Each structure stands twice: as structure tokens, then as C-alpha cells.
């Protein structure tokens, strides 16, 4: 394993200043009316706001946050499913989205995605064998004759029986479907996987099996992951480095041990304090107050300031930048930017 020895090389995937705005759909009439001041301008959601994220080869980066914080959008930008409104995606140093289409398509095979609900991502009318072989056939990676052998090997690689190739998705349990989703993503031999809540829907005992599969595949194939989850325990188990998002911004990033042991940002501290754990035992909760603000109208300055126990006057005026507070540990907070 090359964990920790990855510094100094070029990032496998780098997101540089990416932002994504979602505006409400408007016709030309509304747009014109808004321009003339007859209608208020359309509300837009800043789902992702100026995020920089570099992922080294062989690294597992966990992306944590609550619903609506933009973690799924950032994952979709990383995989190329959602074009960013601003900023750039670099794959092995190359601005992949500016390459000619054929070249981009070839490189894009290296980045695959695993979704939360594997059943929704599997065509119910195709057998599992067809589902797994579809992409590599289309891209010319395997021929028709190799197909059945390829499918058998793929299924065995994710811990399923090779005889299952002729079955349909509805004949499988949730955990088996998750494995099929993984086999499909791996079928085009990617180097990088974006996993969006890939184990969130599974029962604890099945979740553990799939998490172990992720660990095994990483060792066997040298995969790099961006692992998106709301579950701190899962991220702590799997990730080398963790990024915490709040309302579109990364507020803290550090190696996993450092982040869980010495969280610097008040939001991370609150998340860690409030996640129920097996060890803490029965206790009184002292939760942080308030709800997640609407991303349509985020608070000024630091987005967290209305809920923050340490908020100062500057926090509502100016957004703190992500700064290094310890080697390899970045936090965006006025408390630590001194």
C-alpha cells in the first residue's frame, strides 16, 4: 500500500476553484422582464462555491456533510456528469473538459461512479451479465467471445457467484445489487471511483461486507476513491483524508486521524460531538441550535455563523478562507486564521 507516500506526485484528479450554480428555469419572457426590473431576478442556488480539491493516486478522500451541502453535486462534477459553472477539472494534470471529444471519452473511462441506490442505476430489463458487459463492449475493451468469461470474472471479483449472470436485478438483495453496481463501475477498468452514499441504504451487517469489498478492491487494483457519505463512522473507517462541506464550501480538510482527534472548525466539532457512537454510552445531548439554512439564501460571511457558538462580529461580514492550521490540516474559520 502506498498510503502516505503519495505526496510530491501529481494529483490524479484535481478540482480547481469549481463552482456550480443552479438557477430556476426561466423562459425568454421572464428573463427579459427580470432584466427590465419588472420581475425580481431568479433565485439561484450556489450548490458548490469555489472548491479546490486534489486527490492523489491511491488515496481515499472522504467527503462529509449534511443534506443540501453540495457533496453530491461536487461528486458529480468530479466524475464529469455535471459541468461546473466555473473552475476546472484536471485529470492527471490535463484539463480534461477542454480536450477533443474522442480523447476526453477515452480518459473519462478512468473515472467511474457508484450510486446510492443500485437498483435505480440498473436497467431492470437486462440480465446482470448484459449490464456488466455493456460498457466494455461499447468501448471496445472486450469482444463478444470474451464476454461470458469477462462477466464471470467480474462477478467473482466482487464476491458474487458466476452463475448469477443470467439473472435480473430484481432477483437480488440490496447488498448483492450494491456489488453489481460496483462490478459495473469496475468493468471499464477505472483508476478512480466516486462513491456517492454507496453503503447508506444497506443494513449494518451487509454494509460491513461491502465496506470490506471496497478495502479489498483498493488493495488489489490500486484504486483511488472519492467517498461521499453523511456517515462519519463509515468515512472514518475508509478514508485517508476527509473534507467537510457546509453549504457549498469545504470548511475543513485533514488526514482522518487528525480530523477526528483534533477538529479545528466549530462545525466539524459539532458534527463529531453529536454523532451517536457506541462507546460514549447514554448521555445528555447538548446539540447546536438551529437548522441548516436554505441554500437559496445562505447567511452572509461564514455560512455557519448563525449556529456557531463562537461567532464574532467579523463572521457575519467576511467569509473565512481555507487556511492551514497544522501541516496538512486546513480549516476555514476566523478563530484559527488569527
Amino acid at each position, binding site marked *: 500500500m502506498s498510503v502516505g507516500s503519495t505526496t510530491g506526485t501529481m494529483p490524479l484528479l484535481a478540482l480547481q476553484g469549481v463552482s456550480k450554480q443552479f438557477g430556476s428555469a426561466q423562459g425568454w419572457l421572464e428573463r427579459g422582464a427580470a432584466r427590465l426590473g419588472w420581475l425580481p431576478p431568479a433565485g439561484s442556488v450556489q450548490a458548490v462555491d469555489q472548491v479546490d480539491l486534489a486527490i492523489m493516486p491511491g488515496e481515499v478522500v472522504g467527503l462529509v456533510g449534511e443534506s443540501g451541502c453540495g457533496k453530491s453535486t461536487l461528486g458529480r462534477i468530479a466524475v464529469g456528469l455535471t459541468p461546473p459553472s466555473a473552475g476546472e477539472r484536471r485529470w492527471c494534470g490535463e484539463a480534461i473538459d477542454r480536450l477533443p471529444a474522442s480523447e476526453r471519452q477515452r480518459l473519462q473511462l478512468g473515472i467511474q461512479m457508484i450510486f446510492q441506490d443500485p437498483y435505480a442505476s440498473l436497467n431492470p430489463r437486462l440480465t446482470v451479465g448484459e449490464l456488466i458487459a455493456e460498457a466494455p463492449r461499447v468501448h471496445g475493451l472486450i469482444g463478444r467471445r470474451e464476454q461470458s468469461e469477462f462477466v464471470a470474472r467480474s462477478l467473482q471479483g466482487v464476491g458474487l457467484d458466476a452463475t448469477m449472470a443470467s439473472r435480473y436485478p430484481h432477483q437480488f438483495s440490496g*447488498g448483492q445489487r450494491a456489488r453489481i453496481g460496483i462490478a459495473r463501475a469496475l468493468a471499464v477498468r477505472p483508476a478512480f471511483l466516486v462513491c456517492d452514499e454507496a453503503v447508506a441504504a444497506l443494513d449494518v451487517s451487509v454494509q460491513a461486507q461491502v465496506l470490506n469489498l471496497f478495502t479489498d478492491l483498493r488493495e488489489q487494483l490500486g484504486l483511488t476513491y472519492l467517498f461521499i457519505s453523511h456517515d462519519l463512522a463509515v468515512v472514518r473507517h475508509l478514508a485517508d483524508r476527509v473534507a467537510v462541506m457546509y453549504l457549498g464550501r469545504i470548511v475543513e480538510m485533514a488526514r482522518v486521524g487528525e480530523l477526528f482527534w483534533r477538529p479545528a472548525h466549530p462545525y466539524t466539532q459539532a458534527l463529531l460531538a453529536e454523532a451517536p457512537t*457506541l462507546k460514549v454510552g*447514554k448521555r445528555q445531548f447538548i446539540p447546536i441550535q438551529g437548522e441548516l439554512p436554505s441554500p437559496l439564501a445562505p447567511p452572509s460571511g461564514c455560512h455557519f455563523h448563525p449556529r456557531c457558538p463562537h461567532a464574532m462580529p467579523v463572521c457575519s461580514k467576511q467569509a473565512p478562507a481555507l487556511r492551514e492550521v497544522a501541516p496538512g490540516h486546513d480549516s476555514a474559520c476566523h478563530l484559527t486564521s488569527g
Partner: protein
Amino acid sequence: MNSVHNAAQAVLEVTGLSVGFAQRGTVLRAVDDISLHIAPGEVLGLVGESGSGKSMTAYSLLGLVEPPGQVSADTFRLCGKEMRAADERAWRQLRGRRIAMIFQDPMMTLNPVLRIDTQMVEAIHAHRRVGRGAALEMAAAALQRVGIADAPARLHAYPHQLSGGMRQRVAIAIALLNAPDLIVADEPTTALDVTIQAQILAEMQALCQASGTALLWITHDLAVVAALADRVCVMYAGRIVEQGPVDQVLAQPAHPYTRGLLNSTPAAAPSQHADNAGATRRLSTIPGLPPALGERPEGCAFRPRCARASAACLQVPALVAVSPGHEVRCFHPLARVSA
């Protein structure tokens, strides 16, 4: 609080509770011979994976199992009333007043086309004869108790105008309206974010302590049980396989399934190891899958997945005590069985 339970005092006392579904000449038992008792003010956690029968247990406790489901029990006392042969009228007198339910999805409780005040006043008027003004005041007070600021304004909202956490608070406020003796909560915080879940757990804990309301908290999440419950029952394939005080069961699980569950739960607790990257760590897992309802093995249903299974496990083991109040249904428990 402990196992020395007094039938006269318990809010809920059931023994031999089963929920069966007849299918092709056989009866499939979703819930198979379970016994539960809850004392006033006690928080009992009911833990299990999907298909373990935990939600069906909750429905049967409120008389909500509809045909073809058949509920049977040896004892079934709720708030001091015998409920074995209760008709729908008897159930309606209890439901919403002495016993209330909170669902995972608050939209199971809330009517999307009615305002919050309409729904809350309706729940009050179903059991009490008070004027509309007094009912509205009670509703506003209930919303305040679950931490909703600006309650009078929220009363005029429709459910879709509220966030998910807010809707669940409203559902909890409706459950609390008539100061019930027992609240059955089926995964009420599973769909919520961590910070919102923490707020709701804190409020439920305070409310139950203040009012002496007993709580049956159904969840798949052992960590939530660890934080909230006094006692815990672990269900597997329709049976209770282990029950006892929560600190004992989590610290010294006696059933191989409970230990398997605990071992397969990744830990989020901070540790001093500055950089223990997850790369080479594996979770110890339970092999195989929980059995489907029609395919439960004979005897101990956990037998095919259990490393300690023997020929004896072809029989159904009885619940035996490993320490006072801590019982396990296993022939080969991990702790020594006391005489």
C-alpha cells in the same frame, strides 16, 4: 427500570406475541413469540435489521396489523387494559391518547392538504371536549415543547412548507398532545441529518424524563440506542435473541448475532492514533444474509451464519439469563450462563 417487572405497574406487558401471515397452507410468522415489558418513564430500544420484524412488532402493539395478518398473544396488557380481544372501539380509545406512534416518515402522520393547526386540533378533539381556542393553545404549547420557535406562526403552515426535521418535530408534538403513557417510535430520526437527529434525541430524552412517558424506540442503529435507551432488545428473524440493560448488552454481548452487529459497525469515536488510515483495516462481518420471511431456518434462525452453531441449534433455544435482567436466546452464548 430493571427486569424485576411488576405487571400492575408496567405500561406495556406482552408475552408470547406473534404476528402471522397465512400463505399456501402454512403460517409465516413475521413476529415469533416475543415478550416485552416497559415501565413508566423507561426507554426501551428495539434493534434489528430490515426484515427482523421490528416494525411489525410496533404495529401489533398499536393494533394496526390488518388482515391477512393475525396477531396472537398470551398476555397483552396496555396501560392496565386487557387488549387480547380488544375491538376497534377499544383501540381507538387508547390510540392517540394513552399510546402514540411516531413513524420514520412524518408524512405518514401528516395530511399534506391540511394546515398544521387543523391537524393538531383534530387530534385533541378526538379525545377531549375543549373549545377551539383552548385546543389551539395546547397545540402551540406542544410545538414549543419540541423546540419549534415561533409556534403560533408555524400552526398556519402546511406540511410542505416545513423542513424534514421540522415535520418530524410536528409529528412528535402531535404524539405528545394528549400526554400518552407510551410512545412507539419507528426509526424516527433515520432520515434526518446528524445535527437535527441530535436535537430530536435530546428533546425526546428531556420530554420523557419530565413527563414519565415510556418510550419504545425502534431502530437499526445501535449507536442511537447506546445514547438514548435504558434497556435494549435485539431482534433477529422475528425473535428477540438478546435483551438487557443497554450498557451490559453493548459492552458484553452474549449472543453471537449481537456481537457480530457490534463488530460490523464502524466506529466514529475519536482516537489518539494520529494517522490510522483506513486502508488495511477490515471490519469483521457476519457471513451471509438475513433470511427472508419464507426461508427462515428451523431452530435457531441465526444458525447458518453462526460460527458457534452445533447440532443442538436445530432446536429453538429459550431465553436464559446470563446476569440479572440480561437474557439471551442461544445454546452457546458468549458469556457464562448463571444458574
